């Protein structure tokens, strides 16, 4: 059996008295594209932030690429590419300098850095804005700059928080194709609150509600289940969310 690149067990996070994530467990194997669905405030971004080592968990175990997130945060950060919720970038920097900086802190130098930069620039179609400052770029370009920075060091794990936010429909289609292309050998966990978007690209769905996982299954299996029950996928997911709400 292939070892998962992301392993989360009994993960809990509190903000004061509020329980934001409650005993979440899941694993993501290489090659999987996992769509992380849930309404706003369900705990998606909190889980992604804990996986990126930005937020320490209150309890539970997190491993990324075989590294414990709490004990080996630097090794984890070397192994992940992150597109954060607000996609905050260094606005004053020029795009090329920003990519070189991120590549540099990931240990890339010389020809390897140039090669990786060329690859991400070509794949995210950033050539026209390389000399611009990040602040001068449109929202769609900013999203692509964030994605390019997440990919520059060729990480085995991608954590993408609302990655298509701000992209136009053509860019969304191109993004989906690109993510499918990136998937072999990588674990990709991307969050969204739009089911149709996730269903287009994910191989598996992970649905979170009220800080708990209420659905975790391969997309094909869920589609079969929905067909068997005579409902569509959206209704199936909504049922599981409502049941979780009721249980809470």
């Amino acid at each position, binding site marked *: 059996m292939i070892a998962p690149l992301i392993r989360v067990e009994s993960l809990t996070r509190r903000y004061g008295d509020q329980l934001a994530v409650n005993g979440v467990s899941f694993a993501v194997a290489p090659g999987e594209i996992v769509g992380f669905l849930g309404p706003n405030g369900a705990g998606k971004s909190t889980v992604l932030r804990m996986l990126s080592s930005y*937020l320490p968990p209150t309890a539970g175990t997190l491993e990324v*690429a075989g590294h414990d997130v709490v004990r080996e945060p630097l090794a984890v950060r070397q192994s992940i590419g992150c597109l*954060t919720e607000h996609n*905050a970038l260094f606005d004053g*920097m020029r795009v090329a300098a920003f990519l070189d900086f991120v590549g*540099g*802190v990931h240990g890339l130098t010389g020809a390897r850095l140039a090669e990786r930069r060329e690859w991400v620039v070509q794949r995210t179609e950033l050539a026209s804005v390389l000399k611009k400052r990040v602040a001068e770029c449109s929202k769609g370009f900013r999203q692509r700059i964030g994605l390019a920075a997440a990919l520059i060091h060729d990480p085995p794990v991608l954590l993408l928080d609302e990655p298509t936010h701000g992209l136009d429909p053509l860019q969304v289609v191109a993004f989906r194709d690109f993510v499918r292309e990136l998937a072999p050998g990588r674990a990709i966990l991307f969050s969204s609150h739009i089911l149709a978007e996730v269903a287009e690209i994910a191989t598996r769905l992970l649905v979170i509600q009220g800080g708990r996982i209420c659905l975790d299954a391969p997309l094909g299996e869920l589609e079969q289940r929905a067909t068997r029950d005579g409902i569509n996928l959206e209704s199936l997911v909504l049922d599981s969310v409502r049941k979780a709400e009721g249980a809470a």
Partner: protein
Amino acid sequence: MTNTSPTAASKLRGVQLVQRRELRALFESAVAPVFLIAGLVLLNSLYMNEFFLTARLDMTPLFDALAPLAGVLFPAITMRMWAEERRQRTFELWMTLPLTPWQVVLGKFGSALTLAALFLVGTLPIVVMLTQLGDPDLGRIFASYVGALCLASMLLAAGLFLSSLCRDQITAYLLAVLVAALFLATGHPRVVAVIDGMSPDAGIGRGLARYFSSLPQYESFVRGRIELGALVHFLGWTAVFLTANASAVKRHRP
């Protein structure tokens, strides 16, 4: 698989990358040009006025004027260094890059200190002018520059730490000016006299001047002496503020 234990060389490279990025950010914003131009015009004008009045080949007036000016100018370099990261939400970006809080803190501090050093370099034409006009005490001038750099180091470390506690750069600036004023004013004879006047037997003013204030330590450099106690004072406080800053960055989470 990635290497889990970065070497000293790779840690240093991380610090250098952050330093270069921050220095570039200072120059690409208005901070560095305004700081350098306004600061140098002000400091050199104050000195040249004194020079023409006294006609002495001595840089003491320049370094005497530098202390209060540093308390107002140096916080302008550091005020946005963390506060802006928090406001623009780039703090999370820093904390998901493979850098330790210490690497980021030292990189930011290094860039601020480099800008302060450039500021001091801007006063070197005066040294050239004095040597052309006669035979100034170069040893004393050298000691004064060491003292100025030490003072800058402490004030910048304090400003950087205070910036890490604030979300607003103006608040960070005002706090840093206040802290600088505390370190400098407590050594001023008039302030010492006022504090001692409130409670003559306690000797609080004299105690503060002797054990806390940076002004007497700085003045020892300006008088031409590089004393171990003064070096320990400035480098010690620098280390305290940088450690507090790294700790604040480690602890800061939403």
